[in-house]
């Protein structure tokens, strides 16, 4: 291939990539564009730029509070979830203990249980514990992730055991080995799992719907769903307002993705070749 044809091929590939990216992005871009239109302009087919939809979503419909709730719940779920998953993964990957295989089998088995099946038992448990309508009620059922434990265990098994042994010889305790050796080396996998936990919790709709009835504890997903029902419009949904609320919902996740994207992609591909 001559330099000219290879340059042309590169242009074509870049062009096609941009086109595909544009197709994937178009609904998002369209909804963001729509969120800056007045309702009248949108329904009349005109263009009238405004920030009012954001003002209404945040001021009138309490989206700032929902955003804060989502950040608190998703943040704590991610932090606790990834911590427990990492510790469990380390134990499963490195220690032989009575019942270890059975316990790991149980963790893997949780991957096969549809989450909706656990709704009622979780609801009853938390109701008895008096934790419904609280942050704890939103957070606790989500902090154990069988998939994250399984994924990280496989990753840690790929790290040479000699590194742990070297650290033990250097004077480390098992917890130090985890914190100073395993966690830094597993950072890409941990980042990728943390982001997945965060996204899953951020988008969680069913459980907050079941567990929360107080509007002050609504997360963004519940707030967004309620917007369809409560927005004015006499049989007509105020789509620009809904899109403004949607944009508030997706922006933090998009920003988070941009920040850890490199780690996420590395984490996913690494699982494939290990």
């Amino acid at each position, binding site marked *: 291939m001559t330099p000219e044809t290879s340059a042309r091929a590169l242009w074509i590939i870049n062009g096609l990539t941009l086109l595909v990216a544009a197709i994937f992005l178009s609904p998002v871009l369209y909804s963001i564009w729509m969120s800056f239109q007045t309702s009248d302009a949108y329904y009349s087919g005109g263009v009238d730029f405004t920030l009012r939809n954001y003002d209404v979503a945040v001021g009138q419909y309490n989206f700032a509070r929902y955003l804060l709730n989502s950040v608190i719940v998703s943040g704590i779920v991610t932090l606790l979830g990834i911590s427990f998953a990492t510790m469990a993964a380390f134990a499963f990957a490195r220690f032989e203990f009575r019942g270890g295989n059975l316990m790991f089998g149980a963790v893997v088995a949780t991957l096969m249980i549809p989450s909706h099946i656990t709704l009622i038992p979780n609801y009853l448990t938390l109701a008895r514990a008096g934790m419904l309508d609280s942050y704890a009620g939103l957070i606790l059922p989500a902090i154990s992730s069988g998939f994250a434990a399984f994924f990280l265990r496989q990753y840690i098994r790929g790290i040479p055991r000699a590194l742990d042994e070297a650290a033990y010889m250097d*004077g480390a305790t098992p917890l130090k080995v985890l914190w100073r050796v395993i966690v830094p080396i597993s950072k890409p996998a941990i980042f990728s799992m943390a982001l997945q936990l965060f996204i899953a919790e951020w988008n969680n709709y069913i459980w907050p719907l079941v567990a929360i009835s107080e509007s002050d504890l609504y997360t963004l997903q519940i707030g967004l769903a309620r917007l369809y029902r409560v927005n004015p419009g006499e049989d007509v949904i105020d789509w620009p307002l809904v899109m403004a609320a949607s944009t508030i919902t997706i922006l933090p996740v998009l920003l988070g993705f941009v920040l850890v994207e490199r780690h996420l992609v590395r984490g996913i591909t690494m699982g494939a070749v290990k």
Partner: protein
Amino acid sequence: MSSITLRDIRKSYANGPRVLHGVDLDIGDGEFVVIVGPSGCGKSTLLRLIAGLERCEEGEIVIDGRRANELPPQDRNIAMIFQNYALYPHMSVLENIAFGLELRKVPRKTREARAREVAETLQLTPYLDRKPGALSGGQRQRVAMGRAMARDTSTFLMDEPLSNLDNALRNAMRTEIKTIHQRLGATIVFVTHDQTEALSLADRIAVMKDGYLQQFDTPAAIYDRPANRFVASFLGTPKMNFVTSDAVTGWTGRRGVEVGLRPDTLRLHRKKPGAASIEARLTLTEMTGSEVVLHCQTQSGAMSAIAHRRQDLPAPGERIWLEYDVAAAHLFDMHSGARV
């Protein structure tokens, strides 16, 4: 003081065969002991037991006069160098060397100064900020050494630390390890399957086979008075020649035994000498530097001998005579292989 005593050490893995069958070793303070043997003989397992990386359920390990069976590795105050170096890939050379001190809560300034001092000794100063991935094999090996040396300990365990290096570097590092041992006066237990390494480094060598300790003695004693046929054949290059006494022409020594003749004790003759000798046909010559290894075929099998390169050497295919000295021969029991 740093002595290690092993008493009747036995080890089996779950659902696996026994890998150590009652090993006893007494390693003195400041001694350089090399554990040598073929793959699977249990030498690395023995080292890992001393380190505390394997549980010792049978037998007793005593370190500095204190029973250590139940002590975890971090409480044994022993430094270890691994075969693949096991450097922490996310830490710089400086951090790798200082990590052991950090875990022992040595203040930052003190541990960095110590790490720099060790790095200087090992000529690693220009690489202190590099990660292990950006180092050559030899440099990594030195970092592993540095990590062990920085620790405030006088007992070092080394698990085939030179096996991943090329020949030239291996020879250089061998000298370096010997120098460090002399300077620090530390107790070193070094595992290898390379008999040259064992002979050149050790104060005493422990030869192992199939989980049994075959002989534990000085290199000279092991070379000159091997305890059995295995030890005799394992140490020494080229290997010792073995022939039954009945098949040795002119043999005046004890009968009904296996005779071991070191290649360097055989003298080459192109004509039949007056002294006792074995007739042979030269099949191959192999130059090793100042010497030439002669591979020959005798009536009782293949044998090898060593001749000086400057000597008037026969051509392959020629008939030669290998003169031997009965007093220099090693005699082994035909059945048990034990020295007689």
